[in-house]
């Protein structure tokens, strides 16, 4: 069997590895972006000088030859699904028995005047980082970042690390509030401002002004303000990177349409990761989840299907993580940014430090539904097991310490949380949890 994988991001790479685990098929991974797979999420750390590009490679260079996975460093121009052929830049082509498309995303642009000027860009590909470095070498007096999502805050941190002033335009009235509940959103906003970022909430881009030579001179906001800058970061989300396939018979909506087996409408063709759009996503989940972890999980399922085991994609309990400057963020399960009927949310926040824990539970059944953590690390296995087994919130609070994953000697706040919980819900829970591995294992056996 001859398997071609287009894209060497986390989805493509994981697919290649897991197919190799299951079979001795010929595997070829194609990417024009980089010779070897690297961690996209680490791009910011290269700019900040924490790491060099080589450190972000997923495996040592010899890994691919050792595992008999061929790498082709070329862009793909076109796919002929009838002939089962992938056409590469430069005119050559490769044929496949099974094809996995994992081409990821591209940064959004919404047709703003000036959005194609020099000095305007997103941050997704390695080439975007190279462009940022080139712009920085010329000197950035002020950078304006448009869009208050995860990439936006990463870009702000990148410039901040090099003492480049940043104005951060965020459409929402409070930072990332489509995802973060009010307490966490306010905390992160304050943290960003405390780092000296000029955060403009409730502000949108109206146009980017040309200096006459095709470079950015300034931007204008919808409120009519003009801000001088020579770099504009567009971080208003991403869309599936599928434009090169639009003229084919591949069924594309926003992303490449796939069924629960991650199969497209073309025989022996799969799509995974950011570029895939599930025609029937699991309840409560979006059809496109442009998230590192989702890409990795889809890849494992696609690998099973490619090697002949019929396996449906089930992303399991939602989880994600990020870091806002110095605040680590983890989420497990279902946390709504707004109060919803039938769901109660318990929220504890440290009186001074940027640390908080939010736990959602069913108001009627008291089954725990989700955890939102800022500045405190919780154990995924424990939280997920509580959520999946619909464990009662009282029991969760009783054993809450078992979820704590902060390093040794860190102050644990679970007793404070339990006290606050008791007060708020008139309960008399006392802390019984320990974070010793033996306790956790026992706890999870009882849950399971």
């Amino acid at each position, binding site marked *: 069997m001859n398997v071609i994988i287009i894209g060497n991001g986390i989805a493509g790479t994981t697919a290649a590895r*897991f197919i190799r685990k299951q079979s001795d098929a010929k595997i070829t991974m194609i990417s024009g972006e980089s010779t070897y797979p690297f*961690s996209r*999420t*680490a791009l910011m*750390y290269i700019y*900040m*000088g*924490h*790491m060099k590009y080589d*450190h*972000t*490679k*997923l*495996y*040592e260079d010899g890994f691919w030859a050792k595992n008999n996975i061929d790498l082709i460093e070329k862009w793909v121009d076109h796919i002929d699904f009838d002939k089962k052929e992938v056409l590469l830049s430069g005119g050559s082509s490769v044929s496949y028995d099974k094809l996995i498309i994992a081409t990821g995303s591209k940064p959004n642009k919404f047709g703003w005047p000036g959005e194609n000027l020099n000095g305007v860009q997103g941050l997704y590909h390695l080439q975007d980082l190279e462009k940022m470095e080139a712009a920085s070498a010329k000197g950035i007096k002020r950078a304006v970042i448009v869009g208050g999502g995860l990439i936006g805050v990463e870009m702000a941190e990148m410039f901040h*690390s090099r*003492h480049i*002033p940043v104005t951060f335009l965020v459409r929402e*009235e*409070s930072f990332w509030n489509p995802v973060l509940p009010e307490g966490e959103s306010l905390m992160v*906003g*304050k*943290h960003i*401002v*405390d*780092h*000296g*970022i*000029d*955060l403009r*909430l*409730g502000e949108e881009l109206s146009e980017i002004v040309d200096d006459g030579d095709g470079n950015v001179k300034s931007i204008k906001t919808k409120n009519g303000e003009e801000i001088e800058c020579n770099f504009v970061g567009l971080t208003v989300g991403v869309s599936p990177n599928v434009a090169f396939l639009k003229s084919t018979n591949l069924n594309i909506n926003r992303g490449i349409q796939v069924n629960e087996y991650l199969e497209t409408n073309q025989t022996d063709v799969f799509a995974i990761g950011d570029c895939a759009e599930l025609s029937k996503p699991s309840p409560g989940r979006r059809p496109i989840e442009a998230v590192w*972890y989702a890409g*990795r*999980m889809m890849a*494992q*399922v696609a690998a*099973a299907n490619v090697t002949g085991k019929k*396996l449906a994609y*089930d992303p*399991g309990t939602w*989880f994600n*993580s990020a*870091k806002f*400057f*110095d605040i*680590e963020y*983890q989420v497990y399960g279902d946390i709504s940014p707004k109060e919803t009927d039938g769901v109660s949310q318990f929220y504890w926040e440290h009186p001074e430090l940027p640390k908080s824990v939010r736990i959602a539970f069913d108001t009627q059944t008291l089954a725990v539904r989700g955890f939102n953590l800022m500045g405190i*690390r919780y*154990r*995924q*296995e424990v939280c997920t097991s509580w959520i999946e087994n619909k464990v009662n919130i009282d029991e969760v609070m009783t054993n809450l310490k078992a979820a704590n*994953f902060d*390093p*040794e*000697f*860190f102050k644990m706040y679970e007793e404070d949380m339990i006290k606050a919980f008791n007060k708020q819900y008139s309960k008399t829970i006392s802390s019984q949890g320990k974070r*010793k*591995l*033996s306790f956790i294992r026992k706890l999870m056996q009882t849950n399971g």
Partner: protein
Amino acid sequence: MANYKSMSVAAHHLSAKMSILYKASMALALVGVFVLFSAWFSNMAYDSVPLLTFSLLSMALGILGITYSLYADRHAGIKNNGVWHDNLTSRGTIAWASGIILTAFYVILYWYPQVLGLGADGSANTGLIRLFDPLSKALNGKQASQWFVYGALYTFVILFLGIKFIVKYRHNKYQIYRTISIIFFQTFIAFLLPEVLQSLNLPYNDFKNIWPLNYYFFFDWHLDELQANGTFGIFILVWGILSFLVFTPILTYFFGKRWYCSWVCGCGGLAETAGDPFRHLSDKSVKSWKIERYLIYSVLVFAVVMTVGVLYTRFTGNEKFLFVGSDALSSWYGFYIGAIFSGIVGVGFYPLMGSRVWCRFGCPMAAYLGIFQRKASKFRITTNGGQCISCGNCSTYCEMGIDVKSYAQQGQDIVRASCVGCGICSAVCPRGVLRLEDGSGDIGSRAQEKRNVLFDELLNQ
């Protein structure tokens, strides 16, 4: 709308002000170093007390000023901005120059102490060593030796760069506590206590320097010295034997080798403080891991064979041991391992190969501890489910050259003989994936089994 008081302009002005303080502090510290050099090279009839005080004070204030300017106006958090852009920390010319100067210093220290001003056969010291005479006399009643100078500077560096490290990681209690521990053991157990013992006419002894790191423990002259000191000598002997035979296995079983390597040991202490800016320079390749295993266990075997030889000769009176004399064995060990490996390569190469070259490739104690850690210890680094984003910060900042990411991205726990448990991988992880733990049971299965999140479970259904 959320309303924040904007400090947007302030932060950038602050950093400019801080950079002035940084430069001034750096200059002050260099003045202190310059005074050391001028005492060394000039024939001035200087007065030791004020000159040494001035030198140490300006170096101390310089380091504190640097610490303040680097970390004070910043939020507590990971401070690795620009590490790979800075000449000194990315093997630039300044790094090479520092490496050469450090190496030269060690060569002189080990083999040409008279160059530092050591008085021949008990005659008065000159140069750099004379500068430390008053301090030495105050502590042990004798004039300074090159080892006293080295010990004093070593302790000074661990103390003040230890403070810098604590401020850098002030959000992380694990780092704070273990650095306080390192400073304590270096200052009181390794430096002051042996000096006090000498002033009481008792044998010099560093109670935390355990055989086989302390390779001369069973040497003839050392055993003679202990024998000549009655009960106290026997106490040191018993303490030393218990340390490697009983304390080490027990403590390593419960806590991993970190109890020694990053909480107690002086070599580790210097690596964690003075060496911290260079921790990312260690080689992470599988090849270097292979070299590491060959080298470190060879040194351990060498140390054991050499010690057995020395004891054999002592008890049988037979000098010949395994084709060569035990004298030859022990002097080779002292030269190649004691001096060249642990000193010159171990510290001199900090700015080029990272801070733990000796601990990783050479230390027989680390090898001994590592065997327990790998085979019989509760210690491991656990991975938080499937949260790893393969960014590589953990591997990059592992001073022991462990490719932590290669485990974390597969959801595997990490149990490696070489891990000194410094906890930096867990600190620099931007997703909170790693945690150092002393867990019970199933250490092997948790570490070896590739717990690929989701996949294995699905296939097993």
